[in-house]
């Protein structure tokens, strides 16, 4: 065999060998467990912190509010739909982290503004400019039970 080929073969053998050694150390241990990905990533994705608690968690302390909500049209709303993420509030021990309580008109308008894409049998809509402009909605409507004792 000519000397060039011998030398090149040696060089390439060394380089390829080094590559496989490097690969052995660099490929993450859990790679390929379930497919072409790091198996550990499944656990990592599961371990992310949640922020929403789910309505069941609210019921444990606030059954009265849930009872207030359930006979009326807002029963399909989860507590956190309006009050925002509640897990911090549920888990808080020493000082209770408060939930968001929207009192401003603009918040109710997000759902209830008249829009041609909304169906009236699905949601009640108001013309925000005409329906008691400037007034807070909660002055007349109980947010948990909007038709209750309407003034």
């Amino acid at each position, binding site marked *: 065999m000519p000397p060039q080929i011998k030398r090149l073969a040696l060089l390439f053998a060394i380089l390829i060998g080094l590559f496989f050694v490097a690969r052995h150390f660099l490929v993450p241990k859990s790679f390929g467990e379930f497919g072409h*990905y*790091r198996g550990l990533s499944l656990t990592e994705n*599961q371990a992310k912190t949640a922020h929403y608690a*789910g309505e069941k968690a609210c019921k444990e302390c606030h059954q009265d509010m849930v009872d207030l909500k359930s006979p009326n049209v807002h029963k399909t709303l989860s507590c956190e739909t309006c009050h*925002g993420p509640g897990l911090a509030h549920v888990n808080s021990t020493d000082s209770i982290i408060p939930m968001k309580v929207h009192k401003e008109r603009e918040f109710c308008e997000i759902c209830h503004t*008249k829009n041609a*894409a909304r169906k009236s049998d699905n949601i009640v809509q108001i013309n925000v400019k005409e329906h008691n402009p400037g007034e807070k909605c909660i002055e007349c409507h109980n947010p948990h039970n909007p038709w209750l004792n309407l003034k």
Partner: protein
Amino acid sequence: MAKSEVKSRRRFLTDAALLTGGIFVASGLTPFGKLLYATERKNPNGPWYGMGIDLEKCIGCGRCADACKSENGVSREPFFFRTWVEQYTILNDGSVKITSPNGGIDGFQQQVPDADIFKSFFVPKMCNHCEKSPCIQVCPVGATFDSPEGVVLVDPNYCIGCRYCVQACPYGCRYIDPDSHVVDKCTLCYHRIMKGQLPACVEVCPTGAKIFGDLNDPNSDLVKFKKEYSWQVLKPHMNTDPKVYYNGLRAEVK
């Protein structure tokens, strides 16, 4: 042409022909389907998650888009969305206006007067968690994958940020996180559903327009949804087999 030139040319052509022929034969032998995308990914033994979206019920309040950002820590500025809501307004002259102001998080204001509107509706969008996802197919390193439950996830610790998957997604649901510079997208709230909870967007939807469920469970809400409604998926011609099923999807939806 000198004889040697003809000979070398001939030799080259024969070599090339043999090589090409060999490749053809070899390609017939390898199971092409397996190489290109997983033709049969559906896991019959565990849950196989999907989502139903009822466009008849969606009121475009944007609570889903808002909750997703809160739940998953998605940056509110600059804007990128794991899920967003679009409003389609079809005018009487046939033209279609589509808007998604801040992904729908702040709700929608009607721009077009009622008189000009033929039809209008909202369409929430999200990652379709395709069964034959092109994004998984094109990832060069294996940083995005299908979980055993059918949820398409990203491994932010392995992603190199090449953005090929962002290009390959026909639905525009992937983006690069501006802080970590790797790819991010809807995870179906994997960290919630694996603990028996609902995805955040489903949790807060006031009208029940989003239905989460297990496609392998005949009693799940999602399977019932698929049975009751004549559902459609986005861009079926792309053959990505999305697992987000829409009721009331109209032809104008992009």
